[in-house]
């Protein structure tokens, strides 16, 4: 009886596994930082679009939290499945490197996108735009909205998020040269832990803690809508200029009611699309680091900088253009 139960469990599980098995054609694994947020859902759309165009199988999967250790484990499975190329948005450049190195050792082309891994661990990096250009766009929007002498603070995701930490460094560098009179009121960024409720709470408390606050930069796609909710509830949209990074879909209501006037992002659809294009081309040997440009389907000709493929410049969204985007 006991054996029977165990057997049934095992068989049931295995039968499930079988149902998902795929037949073989060229396969590209695309891994986001985490699944279930709009930004990466949009990227998935782009990745699958490119897959269809190029006639390759796309496996789009990632951990359910932005945890690099889970990414590494999943990568190992993909290595075992002998994918032809892997495009990954790593949660940490160093922590993912050993797993990526293993993939390359087994002849799999490795592309990073959204954020980079250690240079020696991947073949190419598909960059939405350089950190410097993200930082510049954000600070320019803030300066335009709140004035070049604005007193501001930053709300980030988790304090350990590497992309955000790099951007913040770049923002500070750019501020010192372009807007030397701007003042960051809080030396440490406020953490929102990818939790919208916490983002709202932190923003609301910050509005009270810093009465002379003029601007808030919320630099994750969870933090900005969360902070917008706090600004809307407090009714201080005219006093405090809120901007940051988020998807247009999440911000549509806040832009329309005037809580947020402008914010910044790039197209995650195009980013996913380009990552797959680059991965396939690289696996076929059609794309190598160092070439000046790369023809990437509907996105057209994109520039290369060494082993970095650059999608373009970030987009600034406002009332006039927000309805044009469906991600």
């Amino acid at each position, binding site marked *: 009886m006991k054996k029977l139960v165990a057997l049934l469990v095992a068989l049931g599980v295995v039968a499930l596994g079988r149902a998902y098995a795929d037949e073989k054609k060229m396969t590209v694994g695309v891994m986001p930082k*985490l*699944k*279930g*947020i*709009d930004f990466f*859902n949009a990227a998935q759309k782009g990745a699958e679009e490119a897959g269809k165009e190029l006639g390759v199988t796309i496996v789009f999967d990632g951990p*359910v*939290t932005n945890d690099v250790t889970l990414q590494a484990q999943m990568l190992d499975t993909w290595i075992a499945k002998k994918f032809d190329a892997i495009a990954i948005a790593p949660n940490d450049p160093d922590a993912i490197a050993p797993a990526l190195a293993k993939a390359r050792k087994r002849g799999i082309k490795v592309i990073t996108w959204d954020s980079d891994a250690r240079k020696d661990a991947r073949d190419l990096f598909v960059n939405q735009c350089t950190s410097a250009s993200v930082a510049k766009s954000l600070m320019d929007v803030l300066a335009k909205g709140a004035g070049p002498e604005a007193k501001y603070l930053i709300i980030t995701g988790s*304090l350990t998020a590497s992309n955000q930490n790099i951007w913040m460094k770049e923002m500070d560098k750019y501020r010192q040269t372009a807007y030397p009179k701007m003042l960051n009121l*809080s*030396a*440490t*960024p*406020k*953490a929102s832990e*990818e*939790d*919208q*409720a916490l983002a*709202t*709470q*932190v923003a*609301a*408390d*910050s509005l*009270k*803690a*810093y*009465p002379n606050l003029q601007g808030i930069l919320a630099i994750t796609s*969870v933090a900005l*809508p*969360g902070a917008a*909710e706090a600004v809307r*509830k407090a009714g201080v949209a005219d006093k405090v200029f809120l901007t940051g990074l988020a998807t247009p*879909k*999440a911000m*549509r*209501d806040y832009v329309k009611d005037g809580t947020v006037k402008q914010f910044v992002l790039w197209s995650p659809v195009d980013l996913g699309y380009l990552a797959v294009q680059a991965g396939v081309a690289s696996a076929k040997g059609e794309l190598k680091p160092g070439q000046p440009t790369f023809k990437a389907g509907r996105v057209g000709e994109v520039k290369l900088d060494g082993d970095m493929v650059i999608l373009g410049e970030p987009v600034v969204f406002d009332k006039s253009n927000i309805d044009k985007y469906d991600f």
Partner: protein
Amino acid sequence: MSVLQLANIRKSFGGAPALRCANLDVRAGEVHGLVGENGAGKSTLINIATGLFRPDSGSIELNGFNVSFASTRHAAHSGISVVHQESDLFAQLSLAENMLLGRGLLRGPAGLIQWGRVYSEAERLIREVGESFDVRAPAGGLSVARRMMAEIAAAVSEQARVLFLDEPTASLTQNEIKNLFGQIRRLKADGVGIVYVSHRLEEVLELCDRVTVMRDGETVETVSTQGLTMDRMVSSMVGREVSSLYEKTPASRGEVCLRVQGATAADGTFTDISVDVHRGEIVGIYGFVGAGRSEFAQTLFGLRPMKHGSVEIDGTAVELSSPRQAVRAGLAYLPEDRLVQGVFRGHSLRSNASVAVLRRLSNFGWIRAAAETKLARQVVSDMNVRAGSIEQPIGTLSGGNQQKVVFGRWQSTKPKVLLLDEPTRGVDVGAKAEIHKLMSGMVEQGAAILMISSELPEVLAMSDRVITISEGRKTGEFNPRVDSKDTIAAAAVPRATVRRAAESEKRPGRLARWLSFREVGLLGFIVFLAAVMTWFKPAEFATVQNFLDVLSTAALPAIVAQGATLIICAGGIDISVGSMIGLVSAVATGAAVQGAPPVLCLGLGMLLGTVFSLLNGGTALLARIHPIIVTLAGISIYRGLMRIATGGKEIMELPAAYRALADGDLFGVPKICYYVIVVTALVHLFLRYTLSGRRVLALGNSESAARLIGLSKARLTLLVFGVSGALVGLAAVLQAGYYGKVQANTGEGMELKAIAAAVTGGTNILGGRGSALGTLLGAFIVALLYNALVLAQASSYWQSSFVGALILAAVIVDMLIQRTRGART
């Protein structure tokens, strides 16, 4: 005339017959003894007569009418009450509640409990049995004798026509027994039929009119006590002749082995006790439970701290600050409460026998298996333990055999001095005789024995000298061959006037009682924090708006925490609520986006929450696994289902009507604050003023005691899980409305916030104690801390450690306060 007649009762448990053919006939106005060895079926018979079990066959007649009891409540209602052995009780509930919970407390209109009436009724009942003590104090702090009196008072109060007393005197001393017998005779005169179950045959002979003897699940005979002798009873119980109950061969008295001088307990339970015990001598200690005798023995054994006094063994002074030191010095202690202090029920006989010498049987920590087996076999043969194998779990042995194993455990340490605390309590006649024989054998070999017993005949028969202890002081030393039984008993009696005066002093005043509430401490903490913040940041902090903001932040965790409080109070836990919030909010907002009206979404959310939570509770109950495992699995299952339900997408752009459920103000106060206040008020009402609420707390206090008063664990567990689920559903729907969005990690970490709020608010994580108000304050404190940290512009990097440290500090301080309070009572 018979009031209660049980005829041809049969009952089996899982195929094993417990009762083969039992008959019992109780007349009005008689005391009817029920005797038999352990396992003879006395408890089963009582449980059938009082409605806990239903018989497989046979009839029960009450006043000549055939009856069948659906529950203990039903039986009690029909006039059949029972006072169980070792009154297992709800330690964290008040004495009054313990007394009256079984009959549903006293409720006014709308079924709400009227506490004033409950207390005065309990006080009246206590007065009726001629006692007087604080009925509002937690029952856990009371002596066994008082609990017993209180239970009898409560049992009698239901116009009982038949009262079962199961081993009522097991922990009472002579004086208390005398008092109890007085009560029993008074009840008898009132025409109540009393069934008196006891191993103490002397008492049975003294008190009872007739006796029914049970053996092997059958009633052997019912005889009048007129002219009945003990030996006759014993042989009838055992089915053969038993040579002697108190066998003691005189041993030659040697040098002084144990010398205690001026021993005084650190907690004041005994003062200035001196005693010498020689080799080859049994010294009996006789006194009330609560007189300090067990405490004295436990102090010698290093379990409790000693303030003054010295202990010498074989002329050498020894330091006894831990049981290990005591064992090394040559002491051994057989505890009085076998189940709680003696055996490891699920462990094998071998492991139970060897535990005290295990380190000696090991080389560098490695247990020598052969040596251990040999030792266990030795114990089995020396102690004449009846068991199938030494690998058998000890819980499957009879009480007497268990006691013999524990005795053997200590004998194998080869102690110089044996401290025996009620060595034959709850042990059947056969085993009792054997244990006495073993004691006798040990002194013969030169050991010294200090025996505590509240059974006077045992003390008289077994001891070479007797010391009486009363109120923590030695009141005399006697020679049982010379001094009379009455002299010795009299010396153990406390001076009643002093005792009463001391009792009334202890009753706390209104202010002290008020201060003892956890909520007051929490409020104090909040006021303190608020004062500090107001001092530093008056403009930002001390505003109505900020207060409301903090309350809004606390609202959702607080609503979930109210549910968690209920579950924890019942002795369970649910760590899947975070994922459940994710799933429920996804479905509810999904419906809203499809155009469902907000109220429908709210209903749907609460319904779903209830269903999921019932699934959690139901699975734990049905599969009999700990809810923490079910809900640990639930964390990933519900989160996975949510992701599948949403297709991995975030849900936003919710209809304005839906958002209006939670978002926005009403009369200048955020709507969400009303929800949390209403929920808190309802949960408070439930926990404090409804019978179901009190039953939930009772269940969390003691599952076994709850079963005895007929509470259904399944029903109460499902109730709390159901209510908690509805609250989780409510919180899920509101969260989506308040923040305007559902994302993949919505609700993540909520379980920890909820548990932290409940625990900070004074809910006992082990169950049985908790309050809705405390939980709200707990949630508020956590939110306030974050608010204060941001307003104080503290570095975000250290925030989480700061909050963690403060919660820990709050819990520790509470623990210390509870402990000092516990020490006082």
